[in-house]
């Protein structure tokens, strides 16, 4: 219970619920069952995209290829069903396997080359997108199987079936990070790379597991997305980047690695979707919606910084000393040379 009270996303959730209730009373459309369904459907999708990024953040890396993999999986499934007339289930499984493989490739390249995930996934991500466009000549497959559509659009009153998918994915990822030895390896490598490798853990394995799961989750998100859109378009994934970072960051996952909160991510997804919808209901300019999301991310990151500094100072002198020493030692030579500090 106390853990819930300390969670970084709690104030945000409370604010959102209060705002939601006020909006529900003040406006007719916001509280309507269909509108709540739309919010939760968006949140379900956002949550899974966020998980795809979160598992990579957990290992202390990042992936810019979540969207690229999503696009490639979308096209693979569309192609298999539309052109080759595969059974839907087989096509979806093949798509998810493909997504996982793409992630594994990322992990292997990063581990082997010692390059940062940023560079590697920037490159592979746009390669995946390029393949998706190449295969389709930029023309979407419009005949998305009805089973996928009915899953993505199905609802019981205000409750979208997709939310069950998001719940399942959140629970599985959370459990894997908590109880699977591979999940613990991911967090240990993310939390203290030296300690983990000195203890005989394999960083390569951690990277492959994290990026592989990220690819799988991106594939799941792709299936959800094509059902909602009723179209398997190669443009899928091109706008996932911001949401993939926003969800885990607002949800309390550390950008530095070693800590992840899948439940926090799910709640962050609901918060983001609610704010997004509320601004539309209130007839706010759509450009302002994006700005609001940006400010929210900034606020979440700042809150995380404040929390970390506070916990640092609360610790013993020696521990704080060595930590801060190491952190400040990473200041650049430029700063040490008396160059004017720039905003960081």
């Amino acid at each position, binding site marked *: 219970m106390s853990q819930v009270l300390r969670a970084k996303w709690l104030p945000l959730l409370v604010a959102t619920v209060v705002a939601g209730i006020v909006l529900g009373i003040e406006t007719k459309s916001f509280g309507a069952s269909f509108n709540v369904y739309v919010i939760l459907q968006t949140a379900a999708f956002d949550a899974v995209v966020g998980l795809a990024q979160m598992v990579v953040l957990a290992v202390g890396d990042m992936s810019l290829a979540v969207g690229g993999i999503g696009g490639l999986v979308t096209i693979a499934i569309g192609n298999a069903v539309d052109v080759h007339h595969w059974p839907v289930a087989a096509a979806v499984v093949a798509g998810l396997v493909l997504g996982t493989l793409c992630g594994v490739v990322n992990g292997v390249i990063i581990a082997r080359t010692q390059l940062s995930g940023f560079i590697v996934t920037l490159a592979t991500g746009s390669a995946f997108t390029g393949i998706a466009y190449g295969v389709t000549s930029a023309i979407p497959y419009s005949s998305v199987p009805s089973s996928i559509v009915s899953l993505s659009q199905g609802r019981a009153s205000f409750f979208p079936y997709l939310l069950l998918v998001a719940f399942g994915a959140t629970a599985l990822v959370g459990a894997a990070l908590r109880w699977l030895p591979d999940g613990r390896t991911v967090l240990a490598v993310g*939390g*203290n790379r030296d300690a983990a490798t000195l203890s005989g853990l394999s960083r390569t394995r951690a990277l492959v597991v994290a990026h592989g799961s990220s690819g799988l989750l991106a594939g799941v998100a792709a299936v959800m997305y094509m059902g909602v859109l009723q179209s398997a378009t190669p443009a899928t994934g091109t706008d996932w980047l911001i949401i993939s970072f926003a969800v885990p960051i607002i949800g309390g996952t550390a950008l530095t690695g070693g800590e992840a909160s899948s439940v926090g991510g799910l709640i962050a997804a609901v918060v983001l979707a609610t704010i997004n919808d509320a601004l539309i209901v209130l007839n706010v300019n759509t450009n302002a919606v994006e700005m609001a999301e940006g400010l929210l991310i900034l606020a979440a990151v700042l809150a995380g910084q404040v929390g970390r500094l506070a916990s640092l100072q609360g610790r*013993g002198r020696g521990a704080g*000393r060595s930590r801060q020493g190491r952190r400040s030692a990473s200041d650049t*030579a430029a700063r*040490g*040379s008396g160059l004017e500090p720039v905003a960081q």
Partner: protein
Amino acid sequence: MSAREPLGMPVTPGEPPARRRSGGGPVPPAVLPPPVLELRDVSKSFGGVAALDGADLVLAAGEIHALIGENGAGKSTLINVATGVFPPDAGAVLVDGEPVELTSPRFAAEHGVAVVHQERNLVGAFSVAENLFLGRAPTRHGLVSYRRVADEARPWLEQVGLGLDPLADARRLSPGQAQLLEIAKALAQRCKVLLLDEPTSSITEGESEHLFAILRDLRDQGTAILFVSHKLEEIYALCDRVTVLRDGRNVVTARPLGEVTRDEVVHAMVGRTVDAAAAHDHAAPVGATRLELDSVSTEYGHHGVSLAVHAGEIVALYGLVGAGRTELARCVVGLAKITAGRLLVDGEPVRIRNPYDALHRHGLGYVSEDRKAEGLILQHSISRNVGITIWDKVRHRLGWLSESRTRPAVESHVDRLRVKMQGIAQPVSGLSGGNQQKVSAAKWLAAEAEILVFDEPTVGIDVAAKEEMHQLLRELAHGGAAILLISSDLREVVRLADRILVMGDFRLLGELANTGDYPTVSRVVMEQITSSVHNVGPA
């Protein structure tokens, strides 16, 4: 290969554990069991500088073996060789008399050699118990079983006297508790050799006492323990035998401590040789006070540090690694916060918020000890590196910088320091360490900083470059600069400094005028440091 078994090793009959020293009495010449870990004639160089030069180490089951030596004597290198962090260039490592090739820390652990490094290696977000079994957490049906993790951790935690909730976050531990957890982690690997690198450097006296009790216990159960420390009191209270390293060689090898006096140990550490070139011009006229610290406390934990540096003077800040000298310098130039006390430049209290302030408002420069990470931008040219401090001065009226304007300003300083280079357009990365250090210093000369903090200016550079650096520091002081010299090289300190401040555990332990007499100065300084456990520090 349990840690609990080595008593079964061929101990000479009729020698019960009672032969252990109690109190300060001499050790009877015992026939020790054969060595568990042995390093023979080990050499290791880094970039042409020999860190170890034919060093030996012999560890027997059931002893606590002290390893001491000055900074840079090769202690850490020896530990790293023994644990497979890197292979020796020459020499052999033997475990139980068998030569082994320890190619990784993991491999060393399998041979029963565990190490507790000075740097704590804990995953903060994980529980105490999980850190204990990092990478080997007990599972049930393939899932980590936290109940088993906690249950199996408990005896190890109890063994080191950590009465903690095994599921508490590791980041909440005090430094002392973290230290004990590291030891428990080593024990949980069932090690028979335990190497401890300065385990008491960041823990309290009470915690140290507790640690010693545990180490004695382990020894009596047959573990071979290597204890690296600078504190002679601790060593005499705890250890059985001692090995002293100096300049990568053994000066004392595995002698029972009962046979060696404190004086002998200190002498062995610092050497007896009088430095022929120790003659520093101590008649240098000292000018006005330029930099002054008045009862300064800092965010790093410095407390009540007061010092003054005058124009034309070199003041050395000597101490062991981890004493807090670099951290103090970082606070002076505004990289970290001063939490109490005053910082004065030319008698005026000032607040320096960052190195930009320090340089451009107060003419204060800091030449970092880590030239590669903090002193230089390696891929940039010499010209750009030196020019970095004077862009404001050499830029064109309309704001742009050009090589033709930077060049003259840079060249004179680079020439003065006799940097060996192909030209000032050469990237700094291609220069030798000594020349890199000169470039790092040159940028502060170009900026005309008059108060200079040199942090380990001669670490890792060759003898000739070192001599030139020393010459430069003297010239600067003669020219009226106020210099604070942070150095772990006592010979360098004796050679250059007018006054010597000794720092330990983030406090000033004392101050002495430099008489230039190396044996006397080194003795006084080492006394201050080694007795710092009981020293309350200056008022």
